[in-house]
């Protein structure tokens, strides 16, 4: 019976996730879609290029969610805490990045070399800032509660989330602000059979992929990475083996915060607008992604992020203009929790049973 549920759960989840794209794919092919106007007449096409565009947009959105989701998954993997403030660390990352552009004098008139150099520098500084911020939050809000019931750090996490949001609110005001489109993210770089690939898409994926591989290398190959894995498996035993558990946990928060900072920079470049509330929604979406992939699992977080990105893109572009997107994403979250709490490729945890 349990075995049955396992398989129904996995395939049920996959079928559920595929439902939206497949529905629109069939619809585009059979009913066609309006691709534009030619001499005042609507042009109806019956091909896959619109679906392709949705998917590509979704993947690049998803790359950002992936970076954030890894932060959730790393922290959850090691101390079984939903780091509620993580989304807001991402938001602070965006704000710091945009602030740094001003400091470095990056503007629309800066040359290509200047932009690339400046953005790399921004990336490094932003990652350092958000990483340290995350470590600081852990030190102040979670470490003193290491032995308290698990409810306690979750509540301080919610508290810190609100503190950071209000820092953002005081920093840049209550409404979304548009920022300089430094990389001209809307420019088409090349076409793949009618699907225009814009700079923004490439940028998001080109930031995410190397970072994820670097993280994978760090965790699987280095000594500190091994300490992280050991601590995640059994903190008590890890301590007995001479691992400094507190330091390892700080390291985990540092890595998660750094990735959130990178995501913040990419988000600012790609969406070209930032506001203090972006972190709350991004955090929930990324958390959904982490759960979808299987929490505690980095590959799962990346996969989940990309899938959520695609679902979100379909919902934004096809389902009445995005106003229901949040409900769709959370609906999926609840369905995952019901069908398969351990996610697509996750292992069974005690919490999710």
């Amino acid at each position: 019976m349990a075995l049955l549920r396992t398989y129904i759960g996995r395939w049920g989840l996959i079928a559920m996730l595929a439902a939206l794209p497949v529905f629109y794919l069939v619809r585009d092919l059979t009913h066609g879609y309006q691709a534009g106007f030619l001499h005042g007449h609507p042009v109806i096409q019956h091909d896959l290029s619109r679906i392709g565009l949705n998917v590509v947009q979704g993947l690049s959105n998803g790359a950002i969610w992936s970076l954030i989701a890894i932060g959730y998954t790393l922290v959850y993997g090691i101390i079984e805490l939903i780091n509620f403030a993580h989304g807001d660390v991402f938001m602070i990352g965006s704000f710091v990045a945009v602030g740094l552009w001003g400091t470095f004098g990056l503007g629309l008139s800066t040359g290509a070399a200047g932009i690339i150099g400046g953005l790399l520098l921004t990336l490094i500084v932003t990652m350092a800032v958000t990483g340290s911020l995350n470590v600081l939050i852990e030190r102040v809000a979670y470490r003193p509660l290491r032995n308290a019931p698990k409810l306690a750090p979750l509540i301080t996490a919610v508290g810190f989330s609100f503190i950071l949001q209000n820092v953002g609110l005081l920093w840049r005001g209550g409404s979304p602000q548009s920022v300089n489109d430094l990389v001209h993210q809307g420019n088409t770089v090349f076409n793949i059979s009618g699907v225009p690939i814009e700079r923004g898409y490439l940028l998001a994926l080109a930031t995410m992929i190397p970072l994820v591989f670097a993280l994978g290398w760090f965790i699987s190959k280095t000594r500190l990475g091994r300490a992280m894995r050991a601590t995640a498996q059994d903190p008590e035993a890890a301590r007995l083996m001479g691992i400094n558990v507190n330091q390892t946990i700080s390291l985990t928060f540092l890595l998660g915060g750094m990735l959130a900072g990178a995501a913040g920079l990419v988000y600012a470049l790609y969406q070209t607008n930032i506001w203090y509330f972006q972190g709350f929604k991004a955090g929930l979406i990324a958390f959904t992604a982490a759960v979808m992939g299987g929490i505690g699992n980095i590959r799962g977080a990346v996969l989940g992020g990309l899938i959520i990105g695609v679902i979100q893109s379909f919902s934004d572009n096809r389902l009445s203009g995005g106003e229901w997107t949040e409900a769709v994403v959370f609906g999926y979250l609840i369905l995952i929790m019901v069908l398969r709490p351990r996610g697509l490729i996750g292992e069974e945890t005690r919490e999710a049973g």
Partner: protein
Amino acid sequence: MSERRVGEPSGWGELRAQLREWRAAVDSRLPTPPRWLGGRWSRLLAAVLIVIGIVLPFAFSQDSGFIDATIKATALAVMALGLNIVVGFAGLLDLGYVAFYALGAYSLGWFGSDFFFKAHVHVLVSGVAAIESGIHLNFLLILVAAALICAIAGTIIGLPTLRLRGDYIAIVTLAFGEIIGEVAVNGTDIHIGGGMTLTAGNLGISAVDSPYFPGIGRFNLLQLRPWYWLILGILFLVLFVNLRLRDSRLGRAWIALREDEVAAVSMGIPLVKTKLQAYAIGAAFGGMSGAFIGTYFTTVNAGQFQFGFSVLILSMIIIGGLGSIWGAVLGGLLLGYINYWLLPDVLNNAPSKIGLNFQLTSVQFGIYGFLLVLVMILRPQGLIPERRRKLEMTAEIGAQDAELGEPMATQTSGVAS
């Protein structure tokens, strides 16, 4: 063997003695309440507080801003009592409590205004409400309806969380709360026939009916005392139910589930029923308070139903002391006053006085977040701790447990497991 009774298998006397020993060990570790809180004095204190509560509005004018804040704070205290059942008693961290505020308020919007203008239903109402189109029920009936709707919604929200534990419950309830908020905003797109929509979105259902009671008349916002006594009555009712529930079989079942789910279930506590009852009852109180807030604010607006509200209510019961009924009331009133009186009326312009360019109300949630962190770190058991919780939350006990070889933090409570 001396205690062996007739017909009892051998060895049971020893077992009983062992059990008594454990029981004594547990009792000795439970902190005793301070003397002034026990027995006669607490009853006297409660009586005095109740009397003060009832006569309080006579000390202020009918349209006093302080009474206005008190009414709102009391309504929030009712919500805190509702959430306390779910989070405090049953240990199910609910981050989507705003859903029940929304549903309660919409119950009022639906059944106490001309929003469903195609319908003509009037039950025990007077004045404009008796003539207008729409559904107009007496406020008490709306309270019942709100409680019922929220209880059903609470059960539905509770169902998917039954298999889950800990943080996952928090996330699922949060997701539900956000979905309901989104439905409230986009409800203008949901047509239910006859040109009517489900909600009025951010425009709000306004001109909702004020409460009307035969013999008292219709309430109006120029005379706040009746409103005050109404919400005070609701508070006393909810408080009474809470106190009775806590000591009931159901209440003890909740606490048992919170402390150790596996042990509780193996002792024969029906998991599904008990948990769902917690969700349903907690939600019902939230709905009643939501309906009251709806009529008091004279509008039901989708913009009110934000995640921040859930956190505000959660902060109340955390600050008051999780699982503690008096703590929930105190925390509710405290944060209610901070929210509706201290920040907007007293301290709002304080930052500008020291040269900062913002208003305190704009960062109110940051302040609550700060309070949450502060309380959790400095006094995790809250202002008026519940006996059992205090034990769990304080560090010395954790150390004792470590000495005993079983860290309590890893084996207690549904939330904490």
